[in-house]
């Protein structure tokens, strides 16, 4: 099942094979969570949004005209969910109580060198990118899609996606230069 491409998984899901959809979830959960974490600071809220996004995608899977474009379609659903979350949060004007981590405590990740504040900084910098740049960066780095694949997913010309990617990368590189230095000095 895991060797099937997106198109095949979408089609078999619509035909009634729910396990196919679980494969799609496995494949794109990191991308979906990355999109949410770049907009929503609370991890559990981000998980809720990602889950709702996948469930909505499942319910409306039959309306996806080109099954090979599942990933691009999913990113639009997730980004809209994040936008709806913000609108709802502003309307309700609630203040969420979050657990305050000890300052600059290393967080357990595959790179133990990243601290909580570094992770927060990175997510903030991504959230300040224009939405189209965010989508391309996250699809490239978290879903491992090439710019050619992203252009096909988003139904945009390759040249456009290439430009967006390099611009987004340049912005992030500039914004995160101090952090690169910090991480490198920590590794030494």
């Amino acid at each position, binding site marked *: 099942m895991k060797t099937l491409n997106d198109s095949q998984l979408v089609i078999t899901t619509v035909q009634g094979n729910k396990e196919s959809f679980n494969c799609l979830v496995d494949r794109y959960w990191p991308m979906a969570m990355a999109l949410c974490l770049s907009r929503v600071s609370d991890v559990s809220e981000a998980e809720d949004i990602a889950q709702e996004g996948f469930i909505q995608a499942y319910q409306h*899977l039959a309306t996806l005209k080109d099954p090979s474009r599942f990933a691009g379609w999913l990113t639009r659903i997730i980004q809209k969910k994040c936008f709806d979350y913000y609108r709802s949060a502003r309307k309700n004007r609630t203040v969420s109580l979050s657990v305050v981590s000890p300052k600059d405590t290393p967080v357990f990740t595959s790179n133990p060198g990243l601290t909580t504040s570094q992770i927060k900084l990175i997510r903030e910098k991504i959230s300040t990118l224009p939405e189209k740049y965010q989508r391309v960066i996250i699809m490239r780095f978290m879903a491992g899609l090439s710019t050619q694949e992203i252009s096909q997913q988003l139904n945009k010309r390759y040249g456009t996606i290439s430009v967006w990617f390099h611009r987004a990368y340049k912005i992030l590189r500039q914004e995160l230069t101090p952090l690169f230095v910090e991480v490198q000095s920590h590794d030494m």
Partner: protein
Amino acid sequence: MTCKAYQTIVNHYKEGILDQEALDDLQQHIKTCSACGAVVSEFSQMQMILEDSLHSSNTGKEKISQAITEIEIHPRTQAPFRKLLIPLARYGTAAAVFLVLGLFWGSRKAPDASSQQQALGIVVSKLQGNVLVKHPWENHWQKMSPGESIYEGDTFLSLHEAALVLSLDPNNAVTLNENSSLALLEYNGRTEFEITYGTVKATLDGPHEPFFVSTPQGRFEALGTEFIVRVR
């Protein structure tokens, strides 16, 4: 900054579009070129940093697996609005056409004791986004709601990404596309549609009774059962 010779190749590497041969070549190159080596190394670091900061546990996935066992995929249904929002160039455009759609069903009126005017036997079968209506006895626009009564003299205004389908009867419908305006006017004792601007699609059961189109240049009969008219 990469060396000039490998600038494009390094960019393609970052984009993930190098084939294996080019990748092997780049790997060899960066062993001797510190400039390209630094760029590639920086890219790897960016990848690692982003993956780590946007990494999440997989526990949330399990809830999805559970949820989909209890819900069904919605069946594929035709989306009239999406079809309508596809570029209409293939249907042609009628520049500055003042169009009146004549329909001979007009005598069908349903009594409505709550209104001074009689509601027409037209049903709002679909409503998408913000569509406004102005009744002839009012000076203001109000947002339409599903199930709303339709009166002679009503003017409809659809906003961006909005659409309205008016069912004249089970077999005849008029669809107002986004950014368009349509009015129901009395003409020679019958109720007719008038497009002020925008795009309207008429779907008629064939063969149908005489169906007239009026323009500043004249009035002619439309014989088709489905057509779209766009007024600039």
